């Protein structure tokens, strides 16, 4: 088992978070959130990976052929659906923010404080 994919997942998570925390543009911040989420795809696929194995489709394989774990692939697919929903909704909210506040810079959104 290689440690590299796990370190990569952690790195992607932190890069995304850093992007959101320092973002000056909400569209960019939503993009960074999507980057953060892709760390979960990397981790899940790394968990299910087997060396020398192939895709878990048995129609043209012998049933004892080594295949990668199909469960994590199902999880990653579900995760993609969740991510698409969240991204779409947040981008819609950013559009409304631009309309109502006239800015997409989080530094200039200051109505809720204290």
């Amino acid at each position, binding site marked *: 088992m290689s440690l590299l994919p796990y370190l990569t997942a952690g790195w992607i998570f932190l890069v995304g978070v850093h992007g959101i925390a*320092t973002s000056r543009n909400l569209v960019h911040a939503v993009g960074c959130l999507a980057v953060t989420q892709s760390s979960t795809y990397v981790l899940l696929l790394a968990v299910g990976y087997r060396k020398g194995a192939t895709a878990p489709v048995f129609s043209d394989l012998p049933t004892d052929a080594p295949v990668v774990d199909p469960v994590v692939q199902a999880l990653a697919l579900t995760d993609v659906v969740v991510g698409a929903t969240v991204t779409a909704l*947040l981008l819609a909210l950013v559009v409304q923010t631009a309309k109502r506040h006239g800015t997409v810079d989080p530094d200039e959104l200051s109505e809720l404080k*204290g």
Partner: protein
Amino acid sequence: MDRLLPLIVVVPLLGAAVLVAAGRHAPRPVAEAVAGLAAAASAGLAVAALAGPPGVSWVGAWRPQGGHSVGIVLVGDRIGLGLAALTSLLVVAVLAYSWRYFDEPPHGHGGAFPALVLLFQAGMCGFALTGDLFDAFVFFELMGVVGYALTGYRVEEARPVQGALVFGFVNSLGGYATLLGIGLLYARTGELGMAQVGRELDEAAGAAGHGADALVVAAFVLVLTGLLVKAAAVPFHFWLPDTHAVAPTPVCMLLSGVMVEMGGYGAARVWTTVFAGPGGVPAAGARRTLLVLGVASALVGALMCWQQRHVKRLLAFSTVAHTGLFLTGIALLTPHGVAGTALYVLGHAGAKAALFACTGILLDRHGSVDECELHGKGRDTPFTGLLFAAGGLALAGLPPFGTGLGKALVEEQSPWLPALFVLVSAVTGGAVLRVGARVFLGAGQAGREDDEGPETAGGEEEPETGRRVRRPPVPMVTVAALLLAASLAVGTVPALTGAVTAAAEAFTDHAGYAAAVLDGGPAGRPEGPYDWWTWTGAGLGLLSAALAVALAARSVGLSSRAVPWSAPLRRLHSGHVGDYVAWTVAGIGLVSLLALW
């Protein structure tokens, strides 16, 4: 009865689908009736399941073979079912509250709002009932996404979209941290079910001869992060006041009443089922984590609550304070701590939802939720004022409200707990009573205040009824009164306390849960002896209520609510997405330290 468990989740989902498909062509009363029926049917199913024996439902009959299963399981244990029933009943109350009066833009899309509320209900009920970690994540995200949409429901206004954005960023980030933790647990055990993961961890620990290693602790921290974000524990709490201050009132009732508590429930559930065994995380680490964050949330929430002039934001911070108390109760990791917390949650849901309901009436009559602007404006509605004051006293823990009973039961677990509980409930209840005295009695000085540094005022808000109403609408007042009555009932029906205590015994039983889910063993316990009101508990409740009244009476004439040295803390609540995300990551570090140290 086991076969009916999925219906508790499916019925609201179906109702939402029907409303989305046909709502455009149906007149509004029809759409609302359909939503009310679906929510009530789900509530009825949950209550019926509570009355029967506890059950486990493997969806599609994918039962475990030799303790292993790839199936999806719903577990109808008492605490989960009780939370599902609470959610469904509160949804019915919310739909009744928004009946006819609540303005539902966009026009011509009748049924959009009730459909979203039903989806929200399905997400929360699913989260309460699921016995599978990945499903818990999916339901977590479902209630999250619907929550963002409901918060920003009135997209034509500036503040709601900002609050919804903050909510979306912080909660999604927490959700992804949880998913990373679930991935790590799957990597270690090859299982996703809570009972299965817990059992695999224990067997691995037994074979290796030692307890938790770094990977298990990392998984614990990551899974807990998302749940604590939902539970609004300090320092993950920043999204909550920004969201609750701007969300439509009926949505606030659900967010504060039950969604935030779902986070605490999730943390307790994951701890007891997955990590409480020998292969999990040492109990001391988990207890320290929950205790430190719980006490910090309670104190920060109470301090911030006292200083607000925006009434909804004030109630939001009181929710932070009370979830802090819930986490403290859970942190005891004993059946009695859990039983007291469960009663506290039930009583709090009624009281807090009633307070939001009364605030919504003020908003619809006067177009403001600002304590200073509303001064004396409520003098012509004494009944609403009475309900508001009763809600404040309930928050302060006045016997025999359910909040008082839950508080009393948790307090008796440890000698230093009464000080914390009395202080926090007196301050939050006192803040509400202060607002009540100024708005409904016209006590103290009217007039505008000077700018006191960073704060959110609540003036010039759009009424949620489309235009201002002259009299308080009957359904809104009735719902508030019924919610308070329910909160009162929680503290006065002994049978409920007995059932909750037995449920908490089963809830905290790590091996019993796995046996009930995987081996078909008996779930649930017969009712044994249980604690009820004691003289000390009632006395401490009376004390905190009296302190709340005294605090309110003393502060009502003062022109300033600011606590002198708390300005830096107030500045931290900046409304800035980047700051909040940075705090969330700092919180992950803090939780790691607390769990490991």
